[in-house]
């Protein structure tokens, strides 16, 4: 049980970084609070596994300090850190039964047999492994093997944190939901700090209290799922979270009004001083752009995607592709329609970073 502090942690695999590009993980300052569930979300190669391995001690960071509560553990070997980690692919000990696999981390720490047995039974119960406890682990399916790996990660009651490195990659979609909600339940029951690495936003947003979105070795935003959705601080977050992602259009912003290729519309706030800037974009999620028969910004419809519960229109705003919602009740559409953009949900980005507007 601990609070984990990243104090300007940075890492470069090449040893001597010369420019910022040489860092696989760029300097990061963050505190992971005891009892919370975090997700590290980002595309492959963004540095999320590196960050996880730094916390568990499999990788020693080239810069910065790592604190567990107030103890500096930056250079402490993994086995002395009191960390549990579950890997992407199931790791099981071939020669052992399921029960022995689950007991292994406890046995290595010389816990009394009674405690081990009770703990193994509890975890097996939680993960539905009770029936298989006395079977040899090797003959089981990939799903079951990964459950054993998860079990080994959760079996130690006293760990500072449990780290998951895309643990559900090999699991069947149907079982994924079940396991994810199990993990969530386990998190609530055990009151542990959990850090969960994934490139799947659904997984991240359903599992975590707070999500760290990473891109290119940088933590671009740390926030609750709602914050990431409603107020992406970086265009990458807007684009990466949500399906489909946020519409980003190059624009000229003059006070509380934006112009995309001459088509003007209102913003929810005023943005003084941006008129001279060239790298300005406005971002608005497809959920807040809707086709309308009334007045609006004229667009050309490319195609309609019917997702069952909702319909999306892929449109063209003066040469810039964007996605809009087709409101229920609108039947056949012509080629040329208008869109209405919700000013309150429209954000302005300068060089990919969100600009805070002032009340108009």
């Amino acid at each position: 049980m601990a609070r984990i502090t990243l104090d300007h942690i940075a890492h470069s695999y090449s040893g001597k970084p010369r420019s910022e590009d040489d860092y696989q993980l760029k300097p990061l300052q963050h505190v992971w609070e005891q009892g919370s569930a975090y997700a590290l979300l980002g595309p492959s190669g963004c540095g999320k596994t590196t960050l996880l391995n730094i916390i568990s001690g499999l990788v020693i960071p080239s810069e910065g300090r790592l604190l567990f509560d107030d103890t500096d553990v930056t250079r402490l070997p993994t086995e002395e850190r009191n960390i549990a980690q579950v890997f992407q692919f199931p790791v099981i000990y071939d020669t052992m039964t399921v029960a022995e696999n689950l007991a292994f981390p406890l046995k290595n720490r010389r816990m009394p047999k009674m405690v081990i047995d009770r703990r193994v039974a509890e975890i097996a119960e939680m993960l539905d492994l009770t029936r298989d406890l006395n079977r040899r682990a090797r003959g089981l399916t990939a799903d079951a093997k990964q459950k054993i790996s998860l079990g080994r990660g959760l079996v130690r009651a006293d760990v500072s944190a449990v780290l998951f490195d895309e643990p559900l990659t090999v699991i069947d979609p149907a079982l994924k939901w079940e396991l994810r909600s199990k993990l969530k339940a386990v998190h609530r029951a055990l009151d542990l700090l959990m850090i969960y690495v994934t490139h799947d936003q659904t997984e991240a947003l359903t599992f975590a209290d707070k999500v760290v979105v990473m891109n290119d070795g940088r933590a671009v935003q740390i926030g609750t799922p709602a914050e990431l959705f409603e107020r992406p601080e970086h265009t990458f977050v807007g684009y990466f979270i949500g399906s489909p992602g946020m519409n980003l259009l190059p624009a000229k912003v003059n006070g509380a009004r934006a112009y995309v290729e001459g088509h003007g519309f209102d913003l929810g706030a005023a943005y003084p001083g941006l008129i001279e800037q060239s790298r300005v974009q406005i971002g608005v999620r497809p959920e807040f752009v809707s086709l309308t028969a009334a007045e609006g910004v004229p667009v050309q419809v490319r195609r309609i995607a019917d997702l069952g519960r909702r319909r999306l229109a892929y449109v063209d705003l003066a040469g810039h592709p964007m996605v809009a919602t087709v409101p229920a009740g609108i039947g056949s559409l012509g080629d040329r329609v208008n869109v209405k953009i919700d000013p309150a949900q429209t954000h302005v980005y300068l060089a990919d970073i969100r600009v805070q507007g002032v009340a108009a």
Partner: protein
Amino acid sequence: MIDKPINNRAWFFVLPVLAFVLFSSLIPVMTVVNYSVQDTLGENNFFWNGDSWFRDLLNPHTTIGARFNDALFRTLAFSFVALAIEVPLGIAIALCVPRRGWSVGISLVVIALPMLIPWNVVGTIWQIFTREDIGLFGAALTGLGLHYNVTQDAVSAWVTIVVIDVWHWTPLVILLSYAGLRAIPDAYYQAARIDGASRWAVFANIELPKLQKVLVIAVLLRFMQTFMIYTEPFVVTGGGPGSATTFLSIDLDKIALGQVDLGNAAAMSIVYYLITLTVCWVFFTIMTQLDRRRDA
């Protein structure tokens, strides 16, 4: 089910191989089978002799039977000793070979060197190396006051043959084990560190089980080769002193080429061959069956 086209013309692709195997193996072997059931009184006149060569060979009360028994026991003992040293030693060294960096290539080449030396050269090297007057090894041991003489002392001769085989062929076990170890994903070692496993636990629960398949191959190869050992005793000890290092192959050579006793030699060849085949088959079957049963 997918309907597979059946085309008997595919056999034409296999025929050349069958012809090759016929000439390279079957026909030469048949001459041996031929000799094993015939006898001759000279002049190249052979007549049918039934199974009496085999009955003599397998009866320990006949001269040839006793001789065969002794040689068989010696050969099995040699295989056992050589394997008992080479397999654990090979695994132990493989564990110490670096896994990454510039030293990998150098280590592997140095380890593989003995295997690249031809058999009879190995014999000659060691024959000179072990001479107690001018050989470095022999002279050193004699200088230490040890009674070491390959041509006169049975223990010296045995130790020497075993040391040669270990030196020559442990590299094979090392290379096979090393390949097996390299095939283990890093995640296993990382998980073991997270789980707080000791070095021994990592070996017993991860490395050894993952090495099982290559070790079966290593043991099979090493058994076959040690069971057929020929050149080293032939060059270094000549099968002596007395008959201390007269292994089956050496004895067979003496009977067939020294005494031109073709009937006995042929029967012995066939029994020798069948023993090798049976041991390998039994070993392989047991190992694969064990593997399968453990999964159930």
